[in-house]
């Protein structure tokens, strides 16, 4: 059941395409790509899902472990839902997981891992993983800006029977990081909502060296929005909130973490958790559509920053430039005419 990919071990730049290692599909998951500055990069990319331990792990220097919570939202204010409104979390190990290889798309570099709860036959929880060869945006909202150094993880809950008639879900992200590094959770305001209508925030969890202003080592970036339908339109967006990241915890002794970090896990690493809840009071509940999707960008280096699209810049330049130009040309014309007219065209009559 568990599928752990330790691909960095078998990474070779000059891998022979005719003789791929049997276990690792490096042609799909290791790709040459372009960074934002146009350089060729070859980033090891590992997204590991440890299903036995009910966790999702995506690894750069990160390990993200996910737990899915469902809670009853009876609150009318913005405060946290009461503790007793939480249902027992879904444990992913009880899910029946489909074969990842069937959904692996070699050209689009995507894969989707779906699992079903054994007690429910209809609903499923999916993790869609996309890797990118170059700089760009996903066609689907939230259209996060990605580079070749990043991958996108999309979390989808589809048709899972809600356990109350006002259910919401929350996702716990656990990251395991070196003790030398510090996890910092930031939320920026962004004036650019062109690609994600009506969302003016970008949240990110970055890992930096302690005691230094060195650049960001790696990041997880998301926009605080989830969508309630598979092909979302503007009204299907629902805001997300996330809790402040927890103080450093001792790393949980998850099988995958142990496998990845080895025996040094306890000494050299620590964990921090962020809870992301989908929907705020006043928004429709999960029950309305029975669908939720949320995207997160995971990557190395500094997180990409949005900038205005050429169309916006073009409109503003033309819009402001034309009146200015008109004013200049018109002013010059009038001046020339004034000057020209002062030469005596008609002599005074007397």
């Amino acid at each position, binding site marked *: 059941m568990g599928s752990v990919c330790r691909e960095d071990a078998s990474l070779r730049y000059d891998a022979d395409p005719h003789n791929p290692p049997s276990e690792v599909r490096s042609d799909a998951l290791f790709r040459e790509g372009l960074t934002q500055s146009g350089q060729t990069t070859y980033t090891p990319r590992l997204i590991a899902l440890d299903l036995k331990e009910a966790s999702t792990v995506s690894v750069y220097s990160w390990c993200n472990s996910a737990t899915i919570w469902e809670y009853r939202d009876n609150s009318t204010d913005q405060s946290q839902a009461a503790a007793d409104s939480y249902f027992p979390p879904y444990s992913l190990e009880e899910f029946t997981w489909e074969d990842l290889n069937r959904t692996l798309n070699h050209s689009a570099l995507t894969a989707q891992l779906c699992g079903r709860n054994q007690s429910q036959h209809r609903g499923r929880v999916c993790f869609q993983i996309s890797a990118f060869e170059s700089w760009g945006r996903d066609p689907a909202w939230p259209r996060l800006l990605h580079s070749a150094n990043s991958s996108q993880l999309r979390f989808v809950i589809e048709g899972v029977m809600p356990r109350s008639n006002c259910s919401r879900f929350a996702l716990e992200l656990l990251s395991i990081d070196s003790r030398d590094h510090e996890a910092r959770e930031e939320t920026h305001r962004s*004036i650019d*909502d062109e690609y994600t209508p009506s969302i*003016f925030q970008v949240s990110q969890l970055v890992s930096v060296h302690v005691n230094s202003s060195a650049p960001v080592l790696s990041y997880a970036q998301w926009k605080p929005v989830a969508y309630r339908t598979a092909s979302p339109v503007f*009204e299907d967006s629902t805001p997300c909130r996330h809790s402040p990241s927890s103080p450093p915890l001792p790393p949980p002794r998850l099988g995958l973490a142990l496998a990845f970090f080895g025996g040094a896990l306890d000494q050299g690493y620590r964990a921090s958790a962020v809870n992301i809840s989908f929907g705020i009071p006043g928004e429709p509940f999960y029950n309305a559509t029975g669908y939720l999707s949320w995207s997160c960008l995971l990557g190395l280096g500094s997180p990409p920053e949005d900038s205005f699209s050429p169309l916006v810049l073009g*409109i*503003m330049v033309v819009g402001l430039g034309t009146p200015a130009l008109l*004013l200049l040309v*018109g002013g010059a014309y009038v001046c020339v005419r004034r000057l020209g*007219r002062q030469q005596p065209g008609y002599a005074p009559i007397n």
Partner: protein
Amino acid sequence: MADREERRGLVQGEDDSEPSPSSSKYGSSSEKQLSACCDPSRLLHRIVVLIFMCFLGFGNYFCYDNPAALQTQIVQDMDLNTYMFMQLYAWYSWPNVVLCFLGGFLLDRVFGIRLGTVIFSLFVCVGQVIFAAGAFFGAFWLMELGRFVFGIGGESLAVAQNTYAVSWFKGKELNLVFGLQLSMARLGSTVNMNIMGWIYSSVKGLVGSPGHTTLGITLLIGCATCIFSLICALVLGYLDKRAEKILNKEQGKTGEVIKLTDVKDFSISLWLIFIICVCYYVAVFPFIGLGQVFFIEKFSFSAEQARAINSVVYIISAPASPVLGFMVDRIGKNIIWVMCAVITTLAAHMMLAFTFWNPWIAMSLLGLSYSLLACALWPMVAFVVPEHQLGTAYGFMQSIQNLGLALISIASGYILDNRGYLFLEVFFSACVCLALIAVVMLYFVDLLRGGDLNLSAKKRGQLQQISDTEAEQRERLLQQNREDLAQLRPMSAFGLRNRYLSRLGAQDELKRLQNSLEHMNDGKYLVQNHQLKKDIENNIEKCQMNMQPFESKVVVIQRAWRDYIQRQDGLHQSCMEKRSPSPPSLSSGKMSTSISMNTLSDGSTPGPVQYVFTGWKNYDVI
């Protein structure tokens, strides 16, 4: 929509000075003594009427912006997208693309003001009820239908309201009354913005859950204001009828004549004004329609704060309109003011688009510039259109404004759905940029044509004075000419000239005129008195020499701009003459001769004054 009343004020402000048809007749002839508040000729009674008059439009303004006040609720309860939501505004505007031309006609010719007002109030009421019913039953098409019916009544009701104002307050407190009605309109919008959300949550508390039923009940409560306005219409109708009986007062008329064929005569300045009007207002009203959620999403405002800030434009406009109007009237320079307003609006929109600065700044700027634009833009139409075409011009302006509003409302909903608020704001900025381009073009067109759109109020006043005296004098001349026609025929030319000039007091008149011209500080208008006299003498001598003995000729002094509105044409004409290398003489015919008084300066720009000496037989004045 909020400018329809401004426009009416302008059209009817024209006959502001006419004496009231009735009030003085009544008084001694009354048989029974009425108390002051029931006596239609007394101020107290008029104040009572004024109260009803102000509340006549209250329901209409209150309900117009209901969708904006309940944006989140409507979108959620009816399961709409923004594109469909903005259809509610578009459906209001569609009937008014046509009705702007018809409203005045219907009031004057078909219904009469009293019945017309009641009918339009009924339309508003029924429209709002249908709108509420659509929400109640969850049928969006019914809501759209409701807005359509509401639109039929709404805009025409404003016309009726202003006609009432003119008929009751003409020659008295008319400007004040227009100001009060305007403030009342803004008050209606503001109250709506701030109270509807509260009503909705109260109803939600009673019904138990949000949903289209709650929305329907809320809108139905809003309809109470419309019913209140309908009652006002009925009471006004009664009071008007009663006043008619007691005072023999005539029913009010809009006096508006719409002639669509006039459109072909519209000057380029007028078309530019139209463009400014459309491009500017589409960046304001649809924005307010979508504003509430924008402030919640982008600036993380609470719903109450968002509603408050969304109504700030109206709040500012209520007191600022009269003040700014007064200022623009005193200073003149309309194009500069319009340019200021457009640039400020552009800055406000860009602030909202590209910064996270406190939106109170941007919205206050927007409110101020919106009021300033209304004060400076709408009167400009009167300067470029002859008075008899004013009705058509304003009707046309409003019609395309409504067309623009309908289209841009839909477009902005679509843009928001697909590209988000940044792009929407950029789109609105682009519209304002278009308006700015049109203003700049208007400025230059006006400058090159020597138009008077951008004159200072002082200069304008002088011109007005001159044109007034001219009009007066022309009247006198015509009168005299008619009288003299029979007697003068046998007189000799010489005798005629003497008589004519002496009767006219032409020398004195010319001197007086010249003085006032000299006051116009532009050196180009300088007129030299002696030279003028000489020219007149010369020309008249020439006249005499050319004259046939049996033809009696008189010299008709005529001026090129005959009244305030038409001065423009004269100006243009004389400019054209001057520019051509050999000015076409108006005295091409053997019987008439002309001189231009304005050749007397250093030959740069022709003055606007032109004296034409024309033969007796071509007696009808140019």
